[in-house]
């Protein structure tokens, strides 16, 4: 059941990608995001600052890194990303979303030198994801925003408020799928992503996505087909669907 639904969602995703082909060609000047996020942010404007906050901000950061890593760069064959001050950054999850680990740079503990580290990296890589260890001072904000603008890079800030943020992304509704009462396994999260800020046309754009899906990918999700996607927790008589969950192994779902 869930297999069929997942295959359908992937198919819809693939066709959406094709129709988006024309659109992406006309937007080559934008720093790309994953196709599933394009309904809410068509791309990131070079030189802008993106803010992430609340539950799900870690996954959103991973998804932005994966988008640049997969579709970014000068010829669109893959861009470089740097992650500063986030030793817990889930590299395996980012790779599952499509990131290329060979084009990732990690600075785990910049401590007090984080503005210098970000300044050095923002000249070189397409996207810097940073969690400042302290509340960023006015001087650091002004300097790093100016550097991002000058070099046309994207600065993504999580954990602290950053004045002058163009786009704020957050997850406002989310539901984990796959766990029962003592059985099953986490299979994915359906999440509604909301974009706010002056960089977004039309207030409060939102979209439903799998963040992440059963394979670890970010895929668009249509609530219309949600009925048959929730077998585990909606058993009317309370019988456990142990067999169904155990049967599936990761990687086979879309094969």
């Amino acid at each position: 059941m869930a297999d069929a639904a997942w295959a359908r969602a992937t198919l819809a995703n693939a066709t959406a990608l094709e129709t988006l082909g024309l659109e992406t060609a006309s937007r080559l000047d934008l720093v790309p995001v994953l196709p599933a996020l394009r309904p809410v942010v068509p791309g990131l404007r070079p030189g802008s600052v993106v803010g992430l906050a609340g539950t799900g901000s870690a996954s959103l950061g991973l998804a932005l890194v994966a988008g640049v890593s997969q579709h970014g760069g000068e010829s669109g064959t893959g861009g470089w990303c740097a992650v500063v001050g986030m030793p817990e950054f889930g590299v395996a999850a980012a790779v599952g979303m499509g990131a290329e680990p060979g084009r990732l740079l990690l600075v785990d503990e910049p401590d007090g030198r984080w503005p210098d580290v970000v300044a050095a990296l923002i000249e070189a890589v397409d996207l810097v994801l940073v969690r400042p260890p302290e509340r960023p001072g006015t001087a650091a904000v002004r300097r790093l925003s100016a550097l991002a603008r000058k070099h046309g890079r994207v600065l993504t800030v999580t954990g602290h408020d950053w004045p002058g943020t163009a786009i704020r992304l957050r997850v406002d509704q989310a539901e984990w799928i796959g766990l029962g009462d003592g059985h099953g396994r986490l299979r994915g999260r359906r999440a509604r992503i909301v974009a706010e800020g002056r960089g977004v046309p039309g207030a409060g754009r939102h979209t439903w996505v799998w963040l992440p899906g059963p394979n670890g990918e970010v895929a668009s999700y249509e609530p219309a087909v949600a009925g048959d996607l929730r077998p585990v927790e909606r058993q009317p008589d309370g019988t456990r669907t142990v067999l169904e969950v155990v049967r599936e192994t990761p990687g086979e779902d879309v094969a």
Partner: protein
Amino acid sequence: MSRTLVVWCPDWPVTAVGIEATTAGAVVVQGRVAACSAAARAAGVRRRQRVRDAQRRCPDLVVRERDTDAEGRLFETVVDAVAALTPKVEIVRPGMCAIAARGAARFYGGEESLRLMVQDAVVEAGFDCGAGVADGLFAAELAARTEEGGTVVPPGGAAGFLAPYPLSVLGRPELADLLARLGIRTLGAFAALPSGHVAGRFGADGALAQRLARGEEPRPLAPGHAAVDLSVRDEFDPPAAQADQVVFAAKRLAGELHEGLGAGGLTCVRLAVEVGFADGHVLERLWRHDGLLSTLAIAERVRWQLSAWRSERPTPGTDADGIELPGDEQAVWGGVAWLELTPDQLVPDEGRQQALWGQSSVTDRIARAADRVQALLGHRGITRPVLTGGRGPGEQVTKVPVGDLVPGGIPDGPWPGRIPAPAPASVPAASLSAEVTDASGAPVMVSARCTLSAPPARVSFDGRPSVAVTSWTGPWPVDERWWDPARSQRRARFQAVTDDGRAFLLAVEGGRWLVEATYD
């Protein structure tokens, strides 16, 4: 930082051609002075002077053509004198050799007494020399060149010792010239510059020179050994009787060695040359060099080693059993049966960006940014992730410092019991502690047979207020590396979703609950 003792013989090219320090003499290459004796220097002879100019200043100058062969051969005497005190002598070049001072100093009762002993041994062998002890090769060489035959620089004092030296000692004339025009004339002033800016302006070589000026290790050794054996070997059947034959083979072997090193993106700072003779005798020498030795340089060192061996023959013309050998000057005693070159102390080749970054090519821009971050935070400050095998979320990623080699031999087993996809988004380096309680508020326990005392109902992290568990699964037991008590791990994992919409990977080990990762 390793304590190093350097033995330095002044004006070695001059000594090697048989000119005493008290007679004015010079060694010339292509009509220019390559080295001169102390007496000649006092008369105004300098390096790189034309012979005609030198002779005008010092009319009774003894002029000889440079003989690198003799330099290498004669220096063996010095090396043998030092090796009688402590083994593992590294020859930096003819005229200078180094030993690791730590163990030897303890054995001979202190660094100063070791220094004097080594110096006496070399002087007894018939050569003037200076000996110095300091942190690292660069500072030790300068310590050996100080007045009165060298000195001991105390541990950690290298930066202060180096500070008054002029920039010319770095051996980088272009850099020294540019810095002098910027008003920087001593190593101390150069060391005081912010390292990030030096790396940004002068590149990797400038950063390396600054590390030298600060009395730091020029480049850190790559941790761990190379997984593959990169040594090359050639057998001679019948044994080679002519030195030329061996040197010719050495040149070819050196080419093979370079190919092997180049394929791994490596270079070696020390080369071991082993020559095996037909009578079973093995002659081994370590040659040290910053950067890769060229094939010609390797062949030259093999020639030095062989010619030294010839000169060591007890009585020319007979071997140990007194059997007559051909009186040919080129004859190698007993014949060389095999020759082996082994690269020692491998470091990543920083000269080749393509190889350094593995499969993805890198622009100068990225390499420069990484250099700047490393100058700010140290070598391990910026890393690249490499996916490796493993069951837990923290084990699946290895972070390799930029510039180091990606570890080889990553196991790609099926990993039964691996945490299924999707992978957690947030994997802290150290697991947080947690409290898991059942509906009645009692802690949830997992027995040795992996049965739960009660289903988990509430969980609290790091002593914060508890939240209700809406759904959960587990336990998934893992019992890893039980054969190795230090690294063994026996835990049971759970996935849980709490009522605030978050999902966690929990683990219980030895009765303690941990949060291994968060599916944020």
